[in-house]
């Protein structure tokens, strides 16, 4: 029985975790709306997108990596490096932004590519290679400078302050649009191209994928390149969000990205999961943050405990509901 009958419609079992996550997200949002005034508005959800566009992009890259059964710890540092390079080139060197952005994206992708090559050809665990990558990228940030650098470039500020208006008096930032485009492209790649299917196959069993004649080397290197590219793009979005470059930006973002991917139902062992889950994972993390700021009276430590508790409740429900429905 590969199909689960829910009510009248049949939902393929593989979609159940994502569905459960989506429902729980909606429930959480509704609960927030009941508890706080001016919470249950569309703009609050949009703000979650606005505030997490960069995380979303980074998490998309991370999804590719995790689907192959790898992990990329360097993303946060690459994000920081991208902000730092952007800021120093634009502000200190006076480069035009149309030249800077492609350069930054290329640097991110190149870093990812290099890590992918080391992981694949020297058969070293991704954890350790990308950890070294993280040290490297952060270290490079500090060699550029230890202070934060403001970005005053016109293109950047214009982009940062632009708003795309939506009906109902709501608006989103251009970053959100970029992030959503990235999500759509990535979803298309994962589900409708050979590369995407090779990603799933490699994650299911690298050995089998190899014996089935799939280009495992290319796939593995590609996912780290994609992740590096996404991190760099996330860095560009973050520099739009913050209008600054700083070596301490995005500390610990790798954990947020991994958490978002895993909350979205992707297995860390690879081969199973959906991009929609990742989007939901990012939204859940963002919503938790929003709830915290609406709560407004939590002391510093209760903030942490509360985040942990919300996460726990969410994961528990997600798990229990999925299991219940399966048996």
């Amino acid at each position, binding site marked *: 029985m590969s199909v689960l009958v829910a009510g009248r419609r049949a939902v393929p079992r593989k979609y159940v975790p994502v569905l459960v996550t989506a429902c729980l997200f909606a429930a959480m949002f509704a609960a927030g709306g009941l508890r706080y005034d001016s919470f249950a508005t569309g703009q609050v959800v949009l703000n979650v997108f606005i505030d997490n566009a960069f995380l979303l992009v980074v998490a998309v890259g991370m999804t590719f990596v995790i689907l192959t059964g790898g992990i990329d710890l360097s993303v946060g540092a690459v994000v920081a490096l991208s902000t730092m390079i952007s800021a120093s080139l634009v502000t200190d060197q006076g480069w035009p932004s149309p030249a800077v952005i492609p350069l930054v994206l290329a640097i991110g992708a190149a870093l990812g590519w290099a890590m992918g090559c080391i992981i694949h050809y020297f058969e070293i665990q991704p954890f350790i290679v990308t950890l070294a990558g993280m040290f490297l990228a952060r270290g490079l940030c500090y060699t550029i400078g230890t202070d934060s650098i403001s970005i005053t470039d016109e293109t950047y500020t214009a982009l940062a302050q632009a708003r795309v208006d939506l009906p109902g008096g709501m608006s989103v930032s251009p970053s959100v649009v970029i992030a959503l485009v990235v999500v759509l492209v990535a979803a298309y790649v994962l589900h409708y191209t*050979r590369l995407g299917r090779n990603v799933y196959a490699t994650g299911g*069993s690298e050995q089998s994928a190899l014996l*089935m004649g799939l280009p495992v080397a290319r796939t593995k290197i590609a996912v780290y390149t994609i992740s590096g590219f996404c991190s760099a793009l996330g860095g560009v979005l973050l520099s739009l969000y913050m209008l600054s470059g700083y070596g301490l930006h995005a500390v610990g973002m790798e954990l947020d990205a991994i958490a978002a991917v895993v909350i979205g139902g992707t297995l860390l062992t690879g081969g199973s999961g959906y991009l929609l889950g990742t989007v939901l994972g990012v939204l859940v993390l963002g919503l938790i943050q929003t709830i915290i700021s609406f709560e407004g009276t939590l002391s510093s430590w209760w903030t942490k405990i509360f985040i942990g508790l919300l996460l726990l409740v969410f994961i528990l429900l997600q798990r229990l509901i999925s299991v219940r429905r399966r048996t």
Partner: protein
Amino acid sequence: MTAPVPILRMRGISKEFPGVKALSGVDFRLLPGEVHALMGENGAGKSTLIKVLTGVHDIDAGEIELGGRKVVFAGPSAAQQAGISTVYQEVNLCTNLSVAENILIGREPRRLGRIQWGRTRRRAAELLARLELDIDVSAPLSAYSPAMQQMVAIARAVDVSARVLILDEPTSSLDTGEVAQLFRVMRKLKEEGIAILFVSHFLDQVYEISDRMTILRNGRLVSEHLTGELGQVELVGKMIGRELADLEKLEGKPLARETEALVEAEDLGRAGAVEPFTLTIHEGEVVGLAGLLGSGRTEIARLLFGADHAGTGSLKIDGRPVSLRTPRAAMNHRIAFCSENRRAEGLIPDLTVRENLILALQAARGWSRPIPRRKQDELVDKYISALKINPADPEQLIRNLSGGNQQKVMLARWLILEPRLLILDEPTRGIDVGAKAEIQRLVASLSDGGMAVLFISAELEEVLRLSHKIGVLRDRRLVAELDNDDDLTTDVLMETIASGARA
């Protein structure tokens, strides 16, 4: 036969793994339009020869010619590109993907780079239909039994109209019907001029399908023959290097009927897996289960071992009702279960032969009572020599063993527990003739010693030879229970399976 210009020629192939010389100076040729059987004991080097050919392993020495041109493949994908399509011994598919994808991944129909899922599924269903299979191709492969997965792997390989098709033990867990279907497809491909390399330990199958055979022993070439020119007994002699006297002779003593009932299952069942069945196993009795692919044999075994929870019914052991919620609970009642799915449910690949072998015994004793090293060595040595596990090195990692030898270790793991009921699901899968006889003898003698055995095999002769009683399954229902008297033959069994009648 016209002038034999080999499509594939391998010369002086040598391959050494750390500590093991797997191949030394092997010559091999494959002609177009023939089915060529590669024969040899477990660990003779058959799979290694195939892996070396298709670029999975590097070669230490020797050269390969394909279509008269020297080639070295960097990996399976290069071999595929060059027209060599392979089904490796262990089913090497991605169980997380759907059946359709497993068949077509890498060759999905596309338009402008976009995979056309509808066409992919239809094409996969067509290919399976060629093998007379009708299953849900969008379900994940993990939903299917190893036998079914093997069929999927074959469908994948057959689809590539390659110049060379390699099948490494494709039939090890297929039933007669599936084998016949596979052979029909193979004959058709052969007529199209495709060269087929075929590995199997079933001599009957080899004689049925192959035109020529090459025999390996201990990584060396023994000889090459036309199949028609070499008798079975001679073949076995060449494979094992000596005469095997009593291959066919195996007669278990008839069961003294008055033994106690050991396990009684009443209306035991599990929704979606197997319908409620009633089955009694007596001490010292060998009960066989026969049925087609997916008929539910494995499910019965799993329920009796507590690997799955029974939804309905009850179970009695020694007349006392018990509930087996975990395998561990079953082991406490001294029930043992050797799974058909060696790779997913048996091997711990990173552990050594010794550790794999004593694992169940250690689990039964608990972590605080380690088995003394001397005792371990004794047990391991005993079973390595009893089952002729090769290489006879207890500290070798089990993933480096050949498939058949891995299977022997799995068996040994349960034999050392000296269980009261031993459930064997396809225990002789991938095991060579000599060892198979050895294992059958072992089962018979253990049952003489009072151990009950539940024996599942796709090979009806084997079931028939060993069992006192045979349960027949069809569509996940236990439809008949037949006493194994002189009237029972494989034909009768086949008929029962086909008609689904209760005898």
